[in-house]
């Protein structure tokens, strides 16, 4: 059995961290989460589709990208959000990554 250094109460590290990240970001997509969590896109996609089947997250197509968020119709959404916020408090590395991410809009054509 492998040494486990981080708790993953939602079944796996990728599932748990993807959920925490979605709670912090509101919504995201596999490639962004992959960069944020420094995990392969395939692992993040697998985790998200598993979470979707468990009804914890919901995804919708925006253009060609599938954007995920915590399922707003999940019966325990409020309790889940509180729990995830607590988990986020403990994951300082993830918090730092999220805070370094620019998500506010940038006017088209404005130089980077």
């Amino acid at each position, binding site marked *: 059995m492998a040494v486990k250094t981080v708790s993953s109460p939602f079944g796996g590290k990728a599932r748990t961290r993807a959920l925490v990240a979605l709670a912090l970001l509101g919504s995201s997509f596999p490639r962004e989460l992959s960069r944020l969590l420094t995990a392969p896109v395939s692992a993040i996609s697998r985790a998200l589709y598993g979470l979707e089947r468990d009804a914890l997250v919901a995804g*919708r197509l925006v253009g060609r990208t599938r954007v995920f968020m915590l399922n707003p119709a999940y*019966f325990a959404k*409020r309790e889940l959000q509180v729990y995830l916020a607590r988990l986020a408090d403990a994951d300082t590395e993830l918090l730092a990554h999220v805070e370094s991410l620019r998500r506010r809009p940038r006017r088209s054509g404005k130089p980077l």
Partner: protein
Amino acid sequence: MKLNTRASLSTVALTVGAVLRRRGITAVLTGGACASLHTGGAYVSNDADFVVRGAVRQAALDSALGELGFERQGDRYVHPRVSFYVEFPPGPLAIGSDLDIHPVEVDRGAGPALVLSPTDSCRDRLAAFYHWRDRQSLRLAVSIARAQPVDFKVIEKWSRAEGSLEAYAEFLRELTRPKRTRVRRV
């Protein structure tokens, strides 16, 4: 009972529901198929969603659906002569954050099947409108409320708990608006 290509979604859903009930599996018809049932087929979904109450082994579902000719393909059941498929979304049976759901029995010849009541089916569609701003779901909720007696007090109380009173007011406005009719070109 044999299902064929001409079977409506309601017929398929109620037949499946009746077989599940006869096998002692408590499964409740929800979603679009349930809304279709309460609106007399005003809306046609591609699938029939059943939420199972309690623990059920996959082999029991395979056997029950197999009795009607359905075969499992991944996480859904398909039939060679029926265009609708059957799915079992994960429970619990809930509408938004409300877990206190009381299904009703409907029997249209195949035996009793458990379905959401018109009020709960209406709330189920409204949940999609409240959370996703899905106006197709709003239209369907309106159709249910027009076709069936629904408990507006229950819907209002639940809408308040969901923090969606403004959207509920929009639902009421749509309900009082005259039915849209298609204009025929001459």
